[in-house]
């Protein structure tokens, strides 16, 4: 019997959903509101050297990769399954577009984090 690949996508959806539910709102607040406006947090938190050092550290690199890729897989899976509710057939084309864009985003994140170096 052919094994279904659904559990893999479901797992990525669940992990991304959990991660975004745990710290997503705070991340948005930090990177998008607190630091750019300089409230609570210093604006120099997003200085090039500081963020580069974070992205060159293996733990920081892993954190950035997990956040970006899991958020992408979470939303891709959710959008894919909601298409059906909107009367759009959740066939191979929709699947390729949804999961494909998450896959491309994951590759782009990998390449960027690789280029940044260690």
């Amino acid at each position, binding site marked *: 019997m052919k094994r279904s690949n659904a559990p893999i996508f479901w797992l990525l959806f669940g992990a991304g959903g959990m991660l975004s*539910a745990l710290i*997503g709102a705070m991340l*948005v607040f930090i990177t998008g509101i607190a630091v750019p406006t300089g409230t609570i947090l210093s604006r120099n938190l997003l200085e090039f050297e500081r963020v580069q050092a974070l992205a060159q550290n293996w733990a920081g690199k892993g954190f950035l990769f997990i956040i970006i890729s899991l*958020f*992408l897989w979470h939303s891709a899976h959710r959008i894919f399954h909601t298409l059906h509710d909107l009367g759009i057939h959740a066939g191979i084309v929709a699947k390729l577009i949804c999961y494909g864009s998450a896959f491309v985003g994951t590759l782009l994140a990998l390449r960027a984090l690789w280029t*940044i170096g260690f």
Partner: protein
Amino acid sequence: MSARRPYVRPMEGWWKKNPFFVEYMVHEGTALFVAAYAFILLVGVMKLAEGKAAWDQWVLWLTSPFAIVLHVVLLLVFLYHTWTWFNIMPRTLPPMHAGGKRVSANTITVTGLAASCAASLLLLLVCWSIAR
């Protein structure tokens, strides 16, 4: 082939008729905003790989009024996502038992929200202590 045209019930806007399904569509819709934020971060990491000039330009964009307003909207939607995620969790988890009794739905939701608050505060504290 015959010209038979069976009646197909239209499904346009079916969810608008019931508040339960409206909420369902709204919480499913949070995925678009999660994707948008992931995309913003992805661009940031790509700019970081390009070098200081590109990165500084991205940070400058973050301070633009459009970006700030966008992030306020993102923040509200993410908070809603957090709320619904843990609200639905009792129905998505397999039944859990503790001390011979099934863990109540309310306990699961409250624990999840508490974990989210703790993790978020920790993250904020770490960022605050790095750059004071």
